[in-house]
């Protein structure tokens, strides 16, 4: 354990950003962000995929030219024929690694190296073994897995020739649906959405009836209002057996986020310095440590060290 190279990765953009902004984001990531792997692709809504299609080639080229490994993330919910065609067309390409986020992609990936994404239910040793048998070599674990379960999973798979990855930054994906909640919020349906999700680059916030911030809606997806930030747990996670740490893209300065996390992994920044560096990102929600200790804190509970750094 802990003898693998520690990698920082960038998860797929979950939101519907303007296509040019999306392209420029990846250009800057390619040039400036200290991440080794970049996950690319539409994982939320197959209707959005064509919006970015024209930019994929140049983005992949730029990322590869700067030494990043590109992995294509598959749709998280596959039901419609449009969804299925998208999965099929991406899987048809043998040039890149693919991250499955739904069992629909698995038949196409058997016997070929691939990744398992955080939208797949992989909670135990035997599930890992089944998927590894089919060629899975990296597992990004479900966001609701607490540290103690991650520890048990790593400890229970000692002979596994695969890596574990954990989300450490960003709003936490909590649920998927067939219904588009962005469209619903605006009195539309999924078929008549007119891509209204583009209004909210970090998701549309939902508050409880007494005004407590709670969730964020992103098309068919529901996320946490608070932003997961495990920068103070990286050491512990490495000791447990996690070797890859995923940042989920948001509208904030992701280069700064990546540089800060890399600094902590390299030992050039203390946790306190890192926390200070992450304040002032202008995030539309507070930091939290999510499910790390099992029970998430209610949104609004800010990590102690972040608070300290702010005061």
């Amino acid at each position, binding site marked *: 354990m802990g003898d693998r190279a520690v990698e920082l990765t960038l998860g797929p953009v979950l939101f519907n950003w303007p296509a040019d902004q999306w392209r420029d984001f990846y250009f800057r990531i390619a040039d400036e962000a200290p991440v080794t792997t970049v996950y690319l692709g539409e994982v939320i809504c197959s209707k959005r995929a064509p919006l970015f299609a024209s930019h994929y080639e140049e983005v992949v080229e730029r990322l590869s030219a700067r030494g990043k490994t590109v992995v294509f993330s598959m749709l*998280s*919910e*596959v*039901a*419609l024929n449009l*969804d*299925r065609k998208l999965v099929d067309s991406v899987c048809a390409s043998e040039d890149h690694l693919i991250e499955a986020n*739904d*069992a*629909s992609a*698995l*038949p*196409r990936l058997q016997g070929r190296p691939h990744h398992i994404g955080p939208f797949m*239910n*992989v*909670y*135990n*040793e*035997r*599930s*890992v*073994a*089944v998927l590894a048998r089919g060629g899975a070599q990296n597992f990004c674990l*479900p*966001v*609701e897995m607490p540290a103690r*379960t*991650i520890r*048990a*999973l790593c400890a229970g798979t000692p002979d596994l020739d695969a890596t574990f990855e954990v989300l450490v930054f960003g709003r*936490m*994906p*909590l*649920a*998927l*649906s*067939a*219904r*588009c909640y962005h469209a*619903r*919020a605006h009195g539309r*349906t999924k*078929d008549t959405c007119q891509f209204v999700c583009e*209004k909210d680059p970090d998701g*549309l*916030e*939902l*508050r*409880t*009836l007494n*005004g407590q911030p*709670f*969730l964020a*809606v992103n098309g068919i997806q*529901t996320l*946490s209002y608070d932003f997961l930030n495990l920068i103070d747990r990286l050491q512990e996670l490495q000791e447990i057996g996690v070797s890859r740490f995923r940042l989920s893209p948001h509208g904030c300065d992701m280069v700064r986020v990546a540089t800060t996390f890399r600094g902590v992994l390299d030992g050039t920044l203390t946790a306190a310095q890192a926390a200070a560096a992450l304040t002032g990102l202008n995030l539309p929600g507070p930091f939290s440590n999510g*499910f790390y200790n099992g*029970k*998430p804190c*209610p949104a609004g509970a800010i990590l102690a060290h972040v608070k300290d750094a702010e005061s």
Partner: protein
Amino acid sequence: MNNGGYTRPQLVCPAGTPAALRTAVEAGADAVYCGLQNATNARNFPGLNFTPAELEAAIAYAHARAAKVLLAVNTFPRAGQFALWREAVDLGARLGIDALIVADLGVADYAARTYPALRLHLSVQAGASSPEAIRFYCEEFGVKRVVLPRILTVAEIADIHRQIPCEIETFVFGNHGLMAEGRCSLSAYATGLSTNMDGACSPAADVHYEEDAARNLTTKLGPFVIDRFACNENAGYPTICKGRYLTDARNEAYYAFEEPVTLNLAGLLPDLMRAGVTALKVEGRQRSRAYVRAVVSAFRKAVDDILAGGEASLASLLALTEGQRETEGAYRSKTWR
């Protein structure tokens, strides 16, 4: 016998207790599904479910009346705790259950390799919503039936039927979860207990009802207000996907995901039967015998009437529905999405 041109579907009914199981069988269930008193099933609620001895007696009771018993071992074991799920599978196999309902890849793998003759059904919790996903489970584990997620139209179900090598079971009545099954951590986010791993959505210990002097009812899950009902308003469970929220895109509080409604596909039964559905499932292991008796009897009669070439005359099930409102959900039209 032409059965009105239809193949006779099985009516698969819920049982949270032995008494409910007997009620379901008496009311005409072809099969009853149930779970054990622990996290191995997705209705891990206090006072509910079966001890091994109760399960054994229930199987004997059902089999004596030509009804099947399906055991739901349909949650996802946490790493380090697989033994509990293995014991549940072993118990089911030993007691002679008619099928095991599984969701987890590891549990499916264990059952398929240890008991190759044991019939496997893929739980709705596995969220297999495309022919490719379903075929994966059929090929890897020999799954004989898939319980489809509640996100498809009847036309899409018919389309899937033509492309898979196994039977289809669909929900026809009951609680209408809005999120893709098995892929929802909302309740876990509010309570710390995972629907997938611990087997309970909106666990009762975290549910709080607060009623003021004017009978306005506030329902809470953990620290979050989920809804508030005026004194003359019908109420719902405090499940996050059926709560009312505020957002900048709206001037007033609204049901961001869905109103408190109950799925009722009574009106779509002939279409479902034509779509190639083998089994019709009633949700509600957490509900009472009174619910089981009313819903199962009504659907038994409706299915039999259709098979006899008649119309389904449906006794109103409305009183049993959440918020006393019903919906056909995703099944009739894409506009639901």
